[in-house]
Structure formats: C-alpha cells, structure tokens
C-alpha cells in the first residue's frame, strides 16, 4: 500500500480512525488543531516539510467536517515556496479551504501570475488548476490575457493547454469582458482543429459557456463542431487511449452535441444534412450490450443525440424514431436507461407534438410508478403528469390514487397535488372530479390544501345534478373509521347544504346525518367547529316537518358553544340558537348558497406559476391551458344561466343586455372574467383564497344578504375598451418609444407593422388571415449591441382562439432578429384579443410587457357583396333578439356618413351604397368565419344629421353570439372612448315617411 509519505499525517489519520465515537474524535482533532496552531504561531524552527504536513492535516480535519479557521495564511504562503512539493500542497489545499472572496487570495495574485507566465510547466499546471477552481474577479482581470496565450500557444504541452482552457472558462464566468468576441471567436475556430482530444474536450467545455451567452458571435464554430462529431462517430484517427470501451471519447461527443444545442436551429441545408447523417447513425447504431460500462457510454451519446434531434426540430420521421427508442428504454430493466428514458420523454413532450405516440407506452410508464426506486417513480410521475390529457386522464388519475395508498412519504405531497391538478384540468365529468378529490382527501388528507376542497364546493354548488351525489358520497366517507379533518370540513359543508336531498335514503335522515357529523365535532379544530355549526343549523332548517328531538339536540350543542373560547364559534352559536327558533322565516336566511361566479382555479394558477422556465414550457403550457378550458365548457349548469345557447361563450360573463357600465378606462377586468378569457389577469392567489373563504362563509355569518344574484358579479369592465387593456407595466424602467395604443390601433386596420418598440427591442408583427385561420409572425429584433437574454414569449390566447407557436430561443444576439410563427384559429366570435406576455433581460434589468395582439374580429371579416333583394330577404328571415339586436349608441365620435362608410369598409364590413335611399343611413354586410363555418352578418346604421353623437345600430345574423359580438365590436369602433355609454333607451324614430326599400326596411326594424 502506498502511504501519504508523511508519517505524522498517517499517525494522525489512524488515531482519528481508532476513535470509538464522535466525542473522542473531536478531542483528538481539537488537540491536533491546538498543536498546529502553536506550531504556526512560533514559525521559527518550522521546516518546510512540517508546514506541508500540517497543511495536509488541516485539509483532512476540514474534510471531516470541522471548521478550520486559522492557518489560511500559512497555506497560502506555501504557494510562494520555491520547492515543488510545498507549492503543490499550497495550491491544492488553498483551492479546497478558501473561496474566491477570501482576502488572502489577493495576496498571491502576483505569485500565481509568475507561475503562469514562467517556464516551469508543472508550476503552470498547479497555478492554472487553483485559479480554475477558486479564481475570482480580480484574478480574471489580471490573468486572462496570459491564460489565453497559454491556450493558443503551440509550444506548450497539451497538459498545460487543457488546464488553460478550463481556467479561462472560470475567468470568463467571473468576468465575461475578459474575452473579446471579435478576436477570440477566430481563435476558437482554430482551437477546434486541435488533434489532442484532451485539449479538445476542455476547449469544448469553454465553447459551451461562450456560445451559451453569445451564439451568434461564435457561429463560425458550428461547422467545425459538426465536423468533429462526424470524425468521432466515424472513429477516424482517434487514439486508442481516447476510446472508452470501444467508443471514441463519449464525453467529447456529448459535449459537442451539447454545444450544438446552444446554437439556434441550424438552417443551412448542407450542414443540416451532415448533422442529421451523424445523428441517424447514432440513433440506429446503438445496441444494448452486456458490458455495463460500454452500455453507459454508448447510451450517454445516444441520449444526447436524442436531445439534439429535439433541438433541431427534426422531421416527423426522426422524431418518431426517437419516441420509439425512448419507448424501448422506458420498458427495459436496466434502471439507469429507464430513468433517462422517462426523463427524456418528459422533455420531448415539451418541444414536440408527440403526445399520441407517447401514449402508446402508457402501460410501461405506469408500471415504473411502482418501481422500488424513488428516482424512477418521480420521473414516471412527472411524465404521466405531462402526458395527461382529457383522453387518458381517468386512467392516469386513478392510477395515481391507487399508488397514493402505498407511496412513501417523500413523494406523497407531490403526488396528491398532481392528481388534484390533473383531475381538475381534464375531468371528463364533474361527478368524477368530486369523487377523485374525496378519495384524495381520504388517502392523503394532509396534502389536500383548502383550495382543493373549496373548488369541490364551488362545482357542487353550481351544478344542481351533482348535489345529491356529492352529499351521498360525503355521507359514506364519514362512516369510515378514521376521517381526516379536511374530509370533515368538506363533508360537513356538503351535508349541511344538500343532505335534505338524501332524506329518503336509509341512514340519511336529518337526525342521522347530524349525529354522524357531530361524532367528529370534539376532535376537530376551531375553524372546522364553526363550519360544522353552520351545517347543523342548515340541517335543522331543512328538516321538514320540524323535528323537535333534533331541534333539542342541536340547541344543546349551540348552548354549549355559547361560551366557547373562540369568538367566531361563540357568535355563530348565539346567532343560530335564536335563528333556529324563528320557524319558517329562518328558511329565507338559511337558504342554499347562491351559485359561484366562474373563477380560475387557484390550484391550476399556482401550478402554472410554479412551472419552470417559461420559454421551454410555453408549448406545453399553452396546450394545457387550452385543455383546462374544457372543464369550464363541460360544466353544464354554470353560473351564467341567462346566456345565449351553448358555445364556448358559456364561460364568458357578458349577458347580451348590457347593464349600465362604468366607462372606467383603467379598471382591470374582474378576476372571474380573467379566467374565462384565459388572459391570466387574475389577482394574486392569496387574495383569491381569502375571497373564496369569504364567499363560502360570508352569507352564513349573516353579514351579507342571504341570496345575491350572480349576474352583477359577472359583469366586468368591457375588455374591449382600448385603455382597459393598456397593460403596459408601469414599473418598468425601460419605456417604449411611442404609444403602444397607437401601434395597436394602426395594426387593427393593417396586417403588418410595429407592435412594440423600446430602446433595445422592436417587435413587429405580420399576419395573413384566411377565413378563420391566420398565419402570424412575430419579429423580435434586438436593436442593441449586447444580447438580450431570458427571452420569454407567452401568448395568452383568448378562449375563442387557438394559438400555437414554436419554441423561442432564450437569447437574441446583438442586432439579430428572431421570427416566431404563430398559427391562429378562430373558434367562435368574440371581441377579445390574445395577449402577448413578453419579457427579456437587458444587462440584469428585467423588462416585461403585455401587449394585445391584433387578433380582432375585423381581421376575420370578409366584406360580403349583397344585392338589395338578398339583403332584404336575409333581413326578413332573421326575426328579432337574440339573432337580431338593436341599440341606440350614444357618445359616437362625430363624423360624416361617408367617413363612417369608409370606416366600415376598412373594417371589412362591406357597405352597400344606395341600398338604403336615406343618405343618413348605412347598410353593410360581412361574412364572419370561425371553425364552425361562415356566418353572414347584416348591419344597418341610422344616423341623425342633427346629432352626430348618436346613432341606431342594428345587427342581424343567424348566430346570436355573432350578432352580439359584431354589434359590440362596431360600437367600440365608432364610440368616443372617454364618454360613458348609457343603456339603450327606446329607439328614436329617425326614419319616417320613406318609400321604396328603405320603407320596407324601416317597417321591418
């Protein structure tokens, strides 16, 4: 056995090893530390050998976990020692004990520099290693040029040069300015010609860092990287020592492919072809072999190749080849490969549309959920979460629930949360959702937050046909032996509200229900007690005819709580005892809770907020967000009862007869509408939670009127108001050059132009509409000379639009432009616009803007030329509200009739001149396209020559929703914004004594 070569050190180590316990060890270590301290204090007579020995001892003690707070000076001083052995110890121990901010390090910068520029290669290596490990900013400034020189030198040994490469990487990280892109990129290209694979590996690590912060600056390195990859995979002139189990340097292959992922997608067809050839060879040529190490190495390369294929937006065929490979991996027994298969499949979900092909492997993925290895279970859980959609939600969620009973503690919370989110997002029906959440509470009540059960209550309250079902379920759960408090809360609430629906079932009489709930009363916390008191009084109220015995029992409970220590419980008890003797009049006060307005699930919002890097997530996020609408749409008896026939509009809280609306230009849309519109303007979740609790309990506390109609709540500030959506964040220090509002207005009539511009970035937009579909391209142009980083593009689509876009790179290089194609499909009529949530960082200053995208209705309009007879025939065929709507609009921007005609034409609402003989009137027609098809829409405007600020507007189409939206849209276009709109009074008889078609029209209207 080779020994450390220092007797004293070996003796000390074996002393420590012989210690029976931690206490003895500490005593021995303290003794040694004291000894070293004295020896260092009295430097005289301390030989270099002894110094070296003590410093090693210090490192050993430090590794054992003891703080060594002295001797740093001595350690650092060794660096300046002339002898190699001492210098080496000095360098090694310094890089272990000290961190980059340590003052002592500054003292040796000169010595270190002398070692680096000196001729002794072994000294150079030591110095480079130390700086590479702990070098700070000051080292950066004083050493970078020397280190660069060593790296490109053709006289240095490879050993020195590879260390120089990594040392430079460290210095670059500490201060990026030390590398000048212009000069250095050419040097990097030459360095990539290096034949020594050790140097090349180090250079590649350096290149990763350089490219990551400036892909364009090092673009010229890209062909070289492809070439290196080709050379490696073909095993062309690779030294035997650099093959690892027969594979030519797997590390270098992996690193090279990593670099390629930091460049933007390669467009050059030649380079692309070469690259895909190589990748294809890797994908096809990797087999599973017996030797574990060989397997690891070949699969390291293979997984990196798959990642690169994903990055390059390869064609469908290659993508499905990758999915097939990953599918194979998730089914193998070898745990490492399976783990990485699951991980990469999850990653793939984010970048490519492979959901369907991944679903084929669902069975294997689910079986990994039961693997004994928690790492694999976690990956499997993540993947299942990512791949879940409406088609497989039932299977996946039930699988998660089943697993929850056996899952170990470490993963339970995550599991419960994910199950709850998926259940909510993709519930095929609400009864299923309620059942899943109740099961969840039963199995993992500790991890079911209040948000989740509030949500259950909301759904049940809003859906009459769910109430008896939910109450019955709640009743069953209370029968179980150990009931979680959350279950008591939700069951108590549901039974209080709806147990009367079960009264005829066995075991569900008011008295029995009361008893089963009250059994839990002594063990629950105070807030739950308060909730249960409300439940009791409700049960009592519903027991018809009044049950004296129950009344007495409940009274007794209330009486006992009259002096309860908690004020809330006490107050409720006192109030309820009086109320419960009011007889039938109690019914008015204790009636069922009104329906809740639609609102965004706090849970889903939190999940979205918590999701990681937005750019990478965006595709998935958008997809999930669209899917999450499903629940709202599938909700049959939603709060908005009086709306036009079912369509996507169900969730839009805008009843056709507009109640008096405040103009309040800057008023943000109410939260519930924000959810419905998917624009994510909801307030912070914390306040939502608060509201929610308030909503659940307020009417019971008798402070709010017992029944409030939901409609006023669902009224929102008109989102079409241009100012209401000037969402520009006031807190930004970087201001736009110009008015976002003006740009938007210009774009509402044009198909291309500027959407936003500030000193650093210009966002242009170009769109091309074809009926209900549009190809839109966003141009993100960096105007500045430094790269813009942390680029994040999120599109918050309006619910009537389907929008898809591909991944956006993280960084925009200086003076470069990135194009983001967006596919838009219009599903139904709405005046809403999608919102672009865009952020970037310019030299650590984050900028975020939210911009309306000009996805306006008029873009979808096509002016429809109609003859007089056609117009009249259609007009006549559409009888009245809701398909034909009329409104007198006031506050109109005064303009001549001809200008208004021009305005209509520019909005693609084709004016049919002369069709209405009255020169003060306009009739026009347009076709609106949505996924459902084309809808002809007829418009008639009667203006009053004596008062140009008002007009009568009539809109007719086959679809009530289109009619309403078109009418509102036209209103928005003609109205003078600062004035409030007033409700429609009786139509003024503006047309009188006319003959011909106009008279016919007038008679019809």
């Amino acid at each position, binding site marked *: *056995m*080779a*020994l*450390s*070569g*220092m007797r004293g*050190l*070996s003796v000390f*180590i074996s002393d420590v*090893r012989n210690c029976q316990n931690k206490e003895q060890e500490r005593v021995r270590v303290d003794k040694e530390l004291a000894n070293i301290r004295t020896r260092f204090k009295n430097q005289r007579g301390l030989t270099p*050998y002894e110094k070296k020995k003590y410093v*090693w001892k210090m*490192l*050993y003690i430090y*590794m054992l*976990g*003891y703080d060594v707070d002295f001797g740093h000076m001595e350690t650092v001083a060794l660096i300046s020692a002339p002898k*190699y*052995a*001492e210098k*080496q*110890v000095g360098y*090694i121990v310094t890089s*272990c004990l000290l*961190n*980059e*901010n340590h003052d002592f390090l500054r003292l040796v910068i000169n010595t270190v520099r002398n070692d680096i520029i000196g001729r002794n290669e*072994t000294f150079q*290596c030591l110095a480079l*290693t130390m700086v*590479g*490990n702990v070098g700070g900013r000051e080292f950066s400034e004083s050493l970078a040029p020397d280190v660069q020189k060593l790296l490109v030198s053709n006289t240095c040994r490879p*050993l020195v040069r590879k*260390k120089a490469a*990594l040392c430079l990487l460290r210095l670059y990280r500490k201060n990026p300015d030390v590398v000048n892109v212009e000069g250095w990129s050419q040097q990097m290209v030459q360095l990539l010609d290096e034949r020594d694979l*050790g140097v090349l*590996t*180090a250079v590649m690590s350096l290149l990763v860092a350089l490219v990551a912060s400036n892909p364009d600056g090092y673009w010229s390195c890209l062909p070289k990287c492809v070439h290196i990859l080709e050379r490696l995979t073909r095993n062309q002139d690779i030294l035997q*020592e*650099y093959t690892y189990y027969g594979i030519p*340097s*797997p*590390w*270098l292959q992996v690193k090279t492919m*990593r670099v390629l992922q930091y460049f933007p997608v390669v467009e050059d067809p030649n380079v692309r072809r070469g690259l895909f050839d190589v990748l294809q060879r890797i994908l096809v040529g990797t087999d599973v072999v017996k030797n574990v*190490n060989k397997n*690891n*190495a070949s*699969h*390291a390369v293979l*997984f990196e190749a798959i990642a690169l294929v994903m990055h390059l937006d390869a064609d469908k065929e290659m993508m499905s080849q990758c999915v097939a490979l990953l599918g194979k991996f998730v089914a193998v027994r070898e*745990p*490492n490969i399976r*783990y990485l298969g699951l991980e990469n499949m999850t990653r793939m979900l984010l970048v490519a549309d492979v959901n369907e092909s991944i679903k084929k492997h669902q069975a294997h993925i689910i079986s990994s959920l039961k693997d*004994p*290895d*928690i*790492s*694999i279970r976690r990956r499997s859980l993540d993947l299942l979460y990512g791949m879940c959609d409406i088609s497989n939600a039932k299977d996946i969620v039930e699988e998660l629930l089943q697993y929850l009973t056996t899952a170990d503690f470490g993963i339970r919370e995550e599991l419960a949360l994910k199950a709850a989110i998926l259940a909510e997002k993709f519930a095929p029906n609400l009864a299923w959702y309620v059942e899943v959440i109740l099961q969840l509470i039963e199995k993992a009540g500790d991890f079911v937050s209040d948000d989740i059960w509030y949500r259950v209550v909301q759904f049940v309250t809003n859906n009459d046909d769910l109430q008896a079902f939910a109450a019955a379920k709640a009743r069953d759960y209370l029968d179980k032996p150990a009931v979680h408090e959350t279950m008591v809360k939700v069951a108590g609430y549901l039974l209080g509200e709806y147990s009367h629906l079960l009264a005829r079932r066995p075991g569900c009489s008011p008295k029995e229900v009361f008893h089963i709930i009250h059994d839990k009363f002594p063990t629950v916390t105070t807030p739950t007690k308060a909730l249960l008191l409300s439940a009791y009084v409700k049960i009592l109220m519903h027991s018809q005819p009044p049950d004296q015995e129950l009344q007495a029992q409940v009274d007794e409970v209330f009486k006992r709580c009259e002096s309860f220590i908690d004020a809330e419980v006490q107050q409720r008890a006192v109030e309820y005892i009086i109320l419960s003797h009011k007889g039938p009049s109690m019914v008015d006060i204790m009636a069922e809770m009104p329906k809740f307005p639609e609102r965004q699930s706090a849970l889903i919002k939190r999940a979205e907020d918590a999701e*990681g890097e937005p750019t990478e997530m965006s595709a998935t996020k958008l997809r999930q967000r669209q899917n999450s609408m499903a629940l709202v749409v599938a909700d049959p008896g939603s709060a908005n009862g009086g709306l036009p026939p079912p369509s996507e509009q169900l969730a839009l809280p805008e009843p056709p007869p507009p109640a008096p609306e405040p103009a309040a230009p800057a008023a943000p849309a109410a939260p519930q509408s924000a959810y419905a519109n998917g624009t994510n303007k909801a307030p912070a979740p914390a306040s939502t939670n608060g509201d929610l609790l308030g909503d659940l309990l307020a009417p019971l506390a008798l402070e709010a009127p017992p029944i409030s109609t939901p409609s006023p709540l669902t009224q929102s500030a008109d989102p079409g108001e241009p100012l209401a959506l000037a969402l520009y964040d006031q807190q930004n220090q970087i201001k736009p050059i110009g008015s976002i509002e003006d740009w938007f207005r210009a774009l509402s009539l044009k198909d291309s132009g500027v959407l936003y511009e500030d000193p650093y970035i210009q966002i242009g937009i170009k769109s091309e509409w074809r009926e209900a579909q549009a190809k839109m391209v966003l141009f993100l142009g960096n105007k500045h000379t430094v790269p813009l980083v942390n680029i994040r593009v999120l599109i918050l689509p309006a619910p009537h639009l389907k929008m898809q876009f591909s991944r956006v790179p993280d960084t925009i290089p200086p003076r470069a432009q990135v194009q983001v194609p967006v596919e838009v499909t219009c599903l139904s009529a709405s005046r809403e616009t999608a919102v672009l949530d865009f952020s970037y960082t310019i030299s650590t200053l984050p900028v975020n803007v939210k911009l309306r995208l000009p996805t306006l209705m008029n873009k979808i309009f096509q002016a429809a030329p109609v003859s007089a007879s056609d117009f009249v025939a259609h007009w006549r065929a559409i009888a009245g509200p809701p398909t034909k709507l009329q409104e007198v609009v006031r506050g109109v921007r005064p303009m001549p009739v001809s200008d208004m005609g021009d305005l209509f034409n520019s909005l693609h609402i084709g004016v049919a001149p002369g069709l209405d003989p009255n020169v003060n009137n306009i009739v026009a027609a347009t076709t609106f396209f949505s996924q459902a098809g084309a809808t002809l829409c007829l418009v008639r405007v009667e203006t009053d020559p004596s008062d140009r600020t008002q007009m009568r507007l009539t809109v007719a189409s086959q679809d009530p929703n289109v009619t309403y939206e078109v009418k509102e849209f036209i209103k928005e276009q003609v109205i003078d914004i600062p004035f409030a709109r007033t409700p429609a009074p009786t139509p003024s008889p503006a047309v009188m004594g006319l003959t011909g078609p106009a008279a016919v029209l007038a008679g019809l209207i």
Partner: protein
Amino acid sequence: MILAALVMNTQGKPRITKFYVPLGVEKQQEAIRTIYSALSQRPEDSCSFVETEDIFGPDTKLVYKHFATLYFIFVIDSSESELGMLDLIQVFVETLDRCFKNVCELDIVYNFNKVHTILDEIVMGGQVVETNSAEVLKAVQDIWKLERVGDLNVPSVRGIGSYRSKS
C-alpha cells in the same frame, strides 16, 4: 457543471470531499449527511441518479456508483450528461486502481492527499479536464516524482504497514 465530487463510505464517513461551488463547512456537512441518508436507503438495483433539489437547488442530481465499501458521488447540474458522469466515475476509480494496485478504502483514507491530486487531474473547476486514464496516471506520477525529490531529506516512512490490517 460538476458541483461537487465526493467519496464516502457506506457508514456515511466522508473520505474525499471537493466542492466546486462555494459552500460553508456547515452546509457541506449537511449536504454530506443528506446525501448519505438518501443513498443508504436505496436498494442495490436502483438507478444511479438521485435528485437533490433540496440540497443543491433545482435541476441538480447526484450520479453515484457503489464500489465495495465506498460511494463515489458526483453532483451535477443539468448541463452534464448523467451517463457521461458515470463513465467519469469509472475513469476515476480505474485510475485509483492503477495508482494503488487494487484500491481499497484504506488506500483512500491514508492517501487522501494523493487522491486529491488525481481528482484535480480529472476534474477542474467543475469541468472535465481529462478522460483518458493513462494520461491522468502519467500526470500524477510526474507530480509524485517531483514531490519525492523535494522530500529526500525527510525521514523515510516505516512501520505503519500494520494500519492496513485494521479496518
């Protein structure tokens, strides 16, 4: 990037610790304890990766290999290839094996200074310097030769061969 390279035995005693990100002693020890408790619970046929978000932040994981009484652990962030790290551990261990002829835990305990030298030739500043075991060995032997020249004037090491038998 490699955030840390650790060698610890199956009782949780750290044998080599090298952190490439600044971390106080307390934090280091806490990390070592957490890592040990995670590893010691893993069944033998588990995968070699453990996610370590609570110790080293998001997107970090441990890649480890278990040899006899020792765990060899690299902590990495998402910019490194997991399997590549396993290969690197293998290179590290093969190199140790060549240096110490059938390396065992005791070799590493008593020669922790040499192991540090070897590790420095493989990983530097969290990046891989060299993956070729022969090359590493050559560099390390050069260093030791130089060291010995400097130590010629000190008493030679004798009489501690018996430490090996204690284990």
